[in-house]
C-alpha cells in the first residue's frame, strides 16, 4: 500500500539527533586532528643534549627507545645528517663527551640555528645562583676578616716596633747622637712599611667587599679567586690571596667599582701614602686613595643577598635550534635518533577522548530513538487499529486510549466504522434483492427458451447468457469486498496454470509459463477472479492470452499478454475506472473487469499496470511474495 511509504517519526527524530551528534563529533575530531600544527619550538641546545642523554641512558638500560619529553624517538640503521656549523660542533662535542662516545658517533642536525646575544633566558637554577652569591659574600667576608686580622697583626707589630723604638731610645741615651739619629731613621722606615702592609690588607678586604656588591654579575669563587662573568661576555678575575702573599689582580676595564668598608674593618689611618701596587681603572684609582666617609657603613651595612635575577644571557656555546635531529650510535652499531616533531603517541588521549565521546553519542542516539519510539507508540497502535477497520469493517472497534487527540480520532473512527457496517448490511440486502429481481426473469426466459426450436433456443441462450454476465459483473463489482475472504498460503503457479487449463479445455488459446510452484499469501477466490478477469479481457480483445509468472525481489510478477489491438498510452489509466471500456463498439461487458481486478490486487498490497508491448496489450500484476 502506497500510504505506508515514509519512515516513522521515531526514525526521523533518531536520525536527526544521530546526524547532529555525529556532525559535532566529526567536527571536534577534525579540529583536533587538522588544526595547523604549531611551528616547531626552538630549544636550547643544552636542554636538547640533556634530553638526549636521558633518552640514551633509557635506551641502554631498557633496550627500547623512550617515548617522552615531547620528542620522537627511533632506532635505525642510518645516522642523521651531520650539520657543519661550528656552534653545533661544540654542542656535539659536549654531548659526545657526556655519552662517552667518539665525536663521529654523535650527530646533530637542525633546520634552524639561532645564535645571538640578544636572547636572554629565564634563569633556571635560581637556588644555585643564590647559593653561589651567598657563598661569594661569605668568602668576601672571610677575606675581609682575614684582612682585619692582618691589620691587627700589623698593628701589633707596629706596637712591638714602637716598643722597640722606645727600647732603642733608651739605648740611644747610651749611644752616640748619630747612632741615635740613624736608629730613629731606620725605625721610621720600618714603621712606614708596616703601615703600607696594613693599607694593603685594608684594600684587599675592600675589593672583596666590592665583588660581593656586584652580584648581579655571575660570580664564582674558586680557591682564592673570584671570577665574575659579565653580560658583555668579558671575564674578570679578582684574585685574593692570603695576607702574606699580598697578590692582587684587578682586570676590570671600564667598570665603576664602588668600594665600601665593612664595619668590622676599621681602617687605620695610613701612616704613609700607599704606593699603588695594582693597576686599576682611572676612576677607581681616583677614588681609592681617599675612601669617602659618606659611603661608609650607613648605606650598606649588612651584606644583603642579591635579589635573584629573572633572566640571564645564554651560557657560552648554547644556541637555539629547531627542527633538529640528534643521533648517537648505540653499542650494537645502530643509531638512536631523537627528532623534534609531533609525537603521535602523545595523541593517545585524543583517541580515548574520541572513544568516550563516540560512546556517549551512541548511547544518546539509542536513547533518542527509544524516546521517539515511546512518543509515537500510541500513534502507531492507532494506525494499526484504523488499518484493521479499513480492511475489515467487522473488526474490533479502535481502543480509545493515548493522548487526547488520539482518543478523539479513535472515537471518530469508531463512529465511522459503525456507519460503515450499517451501509454494508444495507448494500448486501439491496444487492441480494437486485440479483433476485433480475435473475428470476432471466431464468424464466431460459426455461421458456427450452420450448423454442433448437436453432432459436441456442440464440436465446446466448443472449440470456450475455445479459446474465452483465448482471453478474455488476453484482460482483458492487458487492466486491476483497477483505472478507481469508488469506491462505497458495500456489500462484498452480492457480494460473489451472485458469489456463480451464480455458484450454474449452479450446481457447491461453498459455502459462513460469515456475512450477510459487507460494504466496493471498485470497484464493479473489486472485482467481483477478486473473480470470484479466484473461477474459485479453480473450475479448484478442484471440490468445499468454500468462507469464516470475518472482523478482521478493515480489511476484504476472504478465498477461494478448495479441489484440493493444491499449493506447493515454487510456492506460482510465481503463481501470469502473464502466470504462476501451472500445464502445462491438465489445461486451460492463467495463468492470479491470476495475475489480485492480481493487483485488491493491487489497493484496500489489498493483496492476499496463505496459508498453510490441503488439497487443501487456498487463502486469505485481503481488507481494
Amino acid at each position, binding site marked *: 500500500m502506497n500510504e505506508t511509504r515514509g519512515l516513522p517519526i521515531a526514525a526521523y527524530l533518531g536520525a536527526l539527533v544521530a546526524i547532529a551528534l555525529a556532525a559535532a563529533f566529526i567536527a571536534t575530531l577534525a579540529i583536533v586532528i587538522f588544526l595547523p600544527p604549531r611551528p616547531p619550538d626552538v630549544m636550547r641546545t643544552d636542554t636538547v643534549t640533556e634530553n638526549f642523554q636521558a633518552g640514551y641512558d633509557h635506551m641502554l638500560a631498557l633496550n627500547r627507545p623512550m617515548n617522552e619529553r615531547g620528542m620522537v624517538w627511533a632506532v635505525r640503521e642510518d645516522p642523521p645528517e651531520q650539520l657543519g656549523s661550528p656552534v653545533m660542533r661544540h654542542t656535539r662535542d659536549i654531548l659526545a663527551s657526556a655519552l662517552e662516545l667518539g665525536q663521529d658517533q654523535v650527530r646533530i642536525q637542525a633546520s634552524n640555528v639561532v645564535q645571538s646575544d640578544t636572547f636572554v633566558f629565564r634563569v633556571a637554577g635560581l637556588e644555585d645562583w643564590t647559593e653561589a652569591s651567598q657563598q661569594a659574600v661569605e668568602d668576601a667576608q672571610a677575606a675581609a676578616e682575614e684582612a682585619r686580622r692582618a691589620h691587627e697583626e700589623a698593628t701589633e707589630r707596629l706596637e712591638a716596633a714602637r716598643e722597640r723604638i722606645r727600647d732603642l731610645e733608651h739605648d740611644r741615651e747610651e749611644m752616640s747622637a748619630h747612632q741615635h739619629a740613624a736608629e730613629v731613621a731606620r725605625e721610621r722606615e720600618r714603621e712606614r712599611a708596616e703601615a703600607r702592609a696594613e693599607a694593603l690588607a685594608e684594600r684587599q678586604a675592600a675589593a672583596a667587599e666590592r665583588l660581593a656588591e656586584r652580584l648581579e654579575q655571575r660570580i664564582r669563587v674558586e680557591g682564592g679567586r673570584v671570577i665574575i662573568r659579565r653580560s658583555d661576555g668579558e671575564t674578570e678575575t679578582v684574585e685574593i690571596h692570603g695576607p702574606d702573599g699580598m697578590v692582587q689582580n684587578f682586570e676590570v676595564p671600564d667598570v665603576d667599582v664602588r668600594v665600601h668598608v665593612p664595619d668590622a674593618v676599621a681602617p687605620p689611618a695610613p701612616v704613609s701614602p700607599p704606593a699603588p701596587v695594582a693597576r686599576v681603572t682611572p676612576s677607581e684609582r681616583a677614588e681609592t686613595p681617599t675612601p669617602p666617609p659618606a659611603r661608609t657603613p650607613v648605606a650598606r651595612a649588612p651584606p644583603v643577598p642579591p635579589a635573584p635575577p629573572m633572566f640571564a644571557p645564554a651560557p657560552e656555546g648554547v644556541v637555539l635550534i629547531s627542527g633538529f635531529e640528534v643521533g648517537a650510535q648505540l653499542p650494537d652499531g645502530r643509531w638512536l635518533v631523537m627528532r623534534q616533531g609531533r609525537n603521535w603517541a602523545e595523541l593517545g588521549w585524543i583517541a580515548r577522548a574520541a572513544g568516550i565521546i563516540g560512546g556517549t553519542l551512541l548511547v544518546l542516539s539509542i536513547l533518542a530513538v527509544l524516546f521517539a519510539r515511546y512518543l509515537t507508540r500510541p500513534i502507531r497502535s492507532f494506525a494499526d487499529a484504523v488499518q484493521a477497520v479499513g480492511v475489515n469493517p467487522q473488526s474490533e472497534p479502535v481502543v480509545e486510549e493515548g493522548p487526547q487527540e488520539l482518543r478523539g480520532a479513535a472515537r471518530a473512527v469508531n463512529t465511522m466504522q459503525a456507519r460503515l457496517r450499517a451501509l454494508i448490511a444495507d448494500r448486501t440486502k439491496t444487492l*441480494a434483492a437486485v*440479483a*433476485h429481481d*433480475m*435473475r*428470476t426473469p*432471466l*431464468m*424464466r*426466459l*431460459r*426455461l*421458456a427458451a*427450452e*420450448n423454442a426450436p433448437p436453432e432459436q433456443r441456442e440464440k436465446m*441462450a446466448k443472449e*440470456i447468457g450475455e445479459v*446474465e454476465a452483465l448482471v*453478474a459483473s455488476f*453484482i*460482483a463489482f458492487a*458487492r466486491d469486498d476483497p477483505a*472478507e*475472504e481469508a488469506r*491462505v*498460503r*497458495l*500456489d500462484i503457479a*498452480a*492457480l494460473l*496454470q*489451472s*485458469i489456463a*487449463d*480451464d480455458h484450454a*479445455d*474449452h*479450446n481457447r488459446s491461453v498459455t502459462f509459463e513460469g515456475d*512450477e510452484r510459487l*507460494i504466496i499469501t493471498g485470497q*484464493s*477466490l479473489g486472485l*482467481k*477472479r483477478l486473473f480470470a478477469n484479466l484473461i477474459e479481457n485479453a480473450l475479448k480483445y484478442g484471440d490468445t492470452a499468454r500468462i507469464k509468472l516470475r518472482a523478482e525481489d521478493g515480489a511476484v510478477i504476472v504478465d498477461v499478454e494478448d495479441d489484440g489491438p493493444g491499449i493506447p498510452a493515454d487510456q492506460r489509466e482510465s481503463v481501470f475506472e469502473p464502466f470504462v471500456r476501451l472500445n464502445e463498439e462491438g465489445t461486451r461487458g460492463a467495463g468492470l473487469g479491470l476495475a475489480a481486478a485492480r481493487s483485488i490486487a491493491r487489497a493484496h498490497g500489489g498493483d496492476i499496470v499496463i505496459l508498453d508491448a510490441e503488439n497487443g496489450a501487456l498487463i502486469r500484476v505485481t503481488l507481494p511474495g
Partner: protein
Amino acid sequence: MALMNETAQPPRVLIVDDDAAIREGLVEVFQRAGFAASSASDVPAMEKVLNTRGADVIVLDVMMPGEDGLSACKRLSGKGRPAIIMLSALGDDADRIVGLEIGADDYMSKPCNPRELVARAKAVLRRRDNDSAAPGESVRFAGFRIDIARRELIDPDDVVIPLSAGEFRLLRAFVERPQRVLSREQLLDYAFDNDSDVFDRAVDVQVSRLRRKLERPGGIEIIRTVRGEGYLFAVKPAS
C-alpha cells in the same frame, strides 16, 4: 431411505421455488428427462411433499419468502435426506461455497442451462449411491486434503493448490473410487459426464496435470498407470 432403482422407478425430484413460471418450467424439463417431478412454492409446502411423496433430489431456491433455502437445507441435513441442489440468484463463488458448506450437494446460479441442471441432478444421485463425501466435508489422502466446496487441493504444507475444473472433477472421481482400476471411458463418464468437449486423449492430459500437482519429493505415486487398462488411485482416502 430413498435409494434409487434406475430401472424400476424413476428418480423423484422436488422443485422448490417461489416463482411459478420457473417451477413449471423446471418440472417440465425434469419430466422430459425421465424424472418424477413435483414442486413446492415455499419451505412448509416442501416439507409437506417430503412427508407425503418423498424425494430423491430437491432443487432448492435460496431466496424465498419466509424461511429461505439455506436454512431449510441446513435443517435437512443428516443421513438419508434427499440430495439437494441449490439454485440461487446469488451466483458468486462465495455464495456457492456457503451453500455447499452447509450441506448442499451442488449449487447452481440462475439463470442456468436446464439440461445442465438435470445432468447435475443425475450426478448428485449417482454420487449418493457411491456413498461419497458430501461437499461440505473434506477428504484426506496421503497428507493432502480436498476442499470440495472450494474445489481446492490443500497440500501437506497447508498450501492451497488451485485445481482446474477438469482436474477437480477427475480427482473427485478418483477419490470416490479409490484402489480400483478405472478405464478412460469410466473416468470420462464419472468425471466429465460424457461432456461432448472432452474426449479420451483429454483424460490422459488431465491425469498428467493432476499428477504434477500431487507430486511431492519423496512422496508416493498417488495415481498409477495400469498399462492397457487405465488408472488407479493408489491410496485410501479418509473423511
